[in-house]
């Protein structure tokens, strides 16, 4: 029997539906991809799986029963936006059907290792950005933070800041994916940011001066001078600094401006 390729619509439910479909088909699986990232190749047996909420729900509750690792691997696998993740999730489900939840710690297996590393990367980036996000106080008493990330971690960040900022309003803006979330003091909502504003932020790494609150520049300067002063010249180690805070994040960091 030839092995098949399963395609889904790129949503979380779609991905789960495709994995569930592949498991149920019982045949051999060559890959499970988002249809947008796939171009047909010769001799490929391609099946497009329609999104089926019921199947997705069933698979997800099976994964929930397996424990936290399975859920994390699935959600973070999706947020990691890697092309190959569907196939590895399929392999994970197959292993778990055979060995139970213990299989999730079988690090010698390539798929488990892949998912565990991907999941760590997503969690790691969410954690790192929860520190590297820089809010700017805008005129309307809203705190606005633009950022770019490798993985889609805005959801994790929104959860983090909604527990933290209390009644103050904020907007998190993933400039690369152009997704933004707004906290009004009680709930998080998706909103649209003006496209001219977005372009300006993307180009300059900073909000246009006319939008900034009165004291914003003052605190930015204080922070810059604190950041410069707290370093110990006798122990200077720029390479280590770059290792721990990679340059791709510097664009929106107030303290690294001009570096």
């Amino acid at each position: 029997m030839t092995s098949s390729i399963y395609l889904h619509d790129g949503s979380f439910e779609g991905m789960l539906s495709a994995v569930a479909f592949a498991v149920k088909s019982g045949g051999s699986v060559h890959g499970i991809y988002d249809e947008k990232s796939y171009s047909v190749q010769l001799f490929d047996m391609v099946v497009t799986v329609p999104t089926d909420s019921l199947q997705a729900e069933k698979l997800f509750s099976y994964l929930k029963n397996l424990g936290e690792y399975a859920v994390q691997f699935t959600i973070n696998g999706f947020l990691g936006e890697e092309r190959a993740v569907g196939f590895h999730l399929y392999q994970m489900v197959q292993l778990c059907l055979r060995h139970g939840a213990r299989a999730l710690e079988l690090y010698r297996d390539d798929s488990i290792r892949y998912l565990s590393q991907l999941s760590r990367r997503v969690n790691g980036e969410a954690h790192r950005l929860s520190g590297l996000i820089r809010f700017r106080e805008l005129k309307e008493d809203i705190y606005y933070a633009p950022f770019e990330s490798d993985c889609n971690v805005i959801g994790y960040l929104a959860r983090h800041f909604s527990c933290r900022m209390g009644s103050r309003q904020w907007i998190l803006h993933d400039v690369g994916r152009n997704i933004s979330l707004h906290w009004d003091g009680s709930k998080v909502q998706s909103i649209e940011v003006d496209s001219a504003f977005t372009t300006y932020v993307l180009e300059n790494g900073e909000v246009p001066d006319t939008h900034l609150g009165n004291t914003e520049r003052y605190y930015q300067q204080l922070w810059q001078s604190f950041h410069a002063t707290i370093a110990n010249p006798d122990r200077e180690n720029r390479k280590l600094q770059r290792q721990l805070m990679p340059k791709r994040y510097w664009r929106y960091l107030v303290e690294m401006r001009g570096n």
Partner: protein
Amino acid sequence: MKTSEKLTILADAAKYDASCSSSGSSRSNTAGGIGSAAMSGICHSWSADGRCISLLKILLSNDCIFDCAYCLSRRSNTLPRATFTAEEVADLTINFYLRNYIEGLFLSSAVYGSPDRTMADMVDVCRLLRKKHRFNGYIHLKVIPGSSPELVRQAGFLADRLSVNIELPSEQSLKMLAPQKTKRTIMVPMQQIGEEYSGFQRDRMKSRNVPCFCPAGQSTQMIVGASAESDLQILTLTENLYTRMQLKRVYYSAYMAVNTSPNLPALTSGPPLVREHRLYQADWLLRFYRFQAHEILSAAHPFLDDRLDPKVAWALRNFDLFPIDINRASYEELLRVPGIGVTSARRIIATRRLCAIREEDLKKIGLVVKRARHFITIGGKYLGDHTMSHQQLVGAMRSAEKPGSIKLLRETRQLRLF
């Protein structure tokens, strides 16, 4: 004086404090308040020396009445002096926090007036933040040696972490270099914090209405290389602090020559960074690898080897205990193999529940094979080289050191040549 000038002076004086962790406390926001503390701690930036910045690390004042030989802010130095008001510190903390520059405040201070007066002012800053501004972020408060038990107690209810700097590893050095500080004035508050911390934690098991007393525990810091103590003395002291005083962390700070004094290393000497690095590695062995100080160092070998990881050095000295079999060894035995850390030891145990580990799996599981292979067998097969002499083995382990360690070693060597 403008706030910005004060910030420069008082942040500059605070840069010698090694600690900047914001971990160990899980505090949630309250109605109408701002902030929370994450158990894991969060780093917000990294400075040019590669150290993480997670807290607004400042002194309340650098106007010191003490005259400690090693300290830049000592009374006999001529330099600009400044003192923050409580409102200034609170304003900076809140505004930096809202912009997500920091995880909270690390407040230390020079001693002005008297230890009690300084400590009372520092507690006032915390009270202002917690009560008036309803700040629920992280606060690390330095305790001034010699401050009264009542103030220490108040500080414990407001801060997440307290620390009393032990400064130097022995009483003689303290006498020589920090004449106004005594072992007693340092150890008494430390002991009090340790006891109250454990006491309140015990009571919280019974009722969650019991208040938290410095939930992230206490830490301390000592200067390495300013006085003549051996690594054995330092490590034994560290071990005692962990086991008897319930400390969460001991920080080492390589001595940086800022003053001239007949009792101190010369101004031109660089900070002993390699020694500090090796001490931290040994400290990790105490905290996470179930080692004891007397296993790592002995009276015959009171100093850590510059060129070897202390765990590797231990394994080479006790080579008769090896090789051990990956598929049979217990967790404790695995932890002692060079090249196996806490994560990979756990993974080995988890994988073994399902199936035996093969040679080709080792790297996948995350072992550093080039270090571990000399110490393990797999299904009876020794992965190292039988023909190697002990000398060759030492050489092989030296070149298999972590790149970071090798780099640090090379750079300090080069410095010494000039």
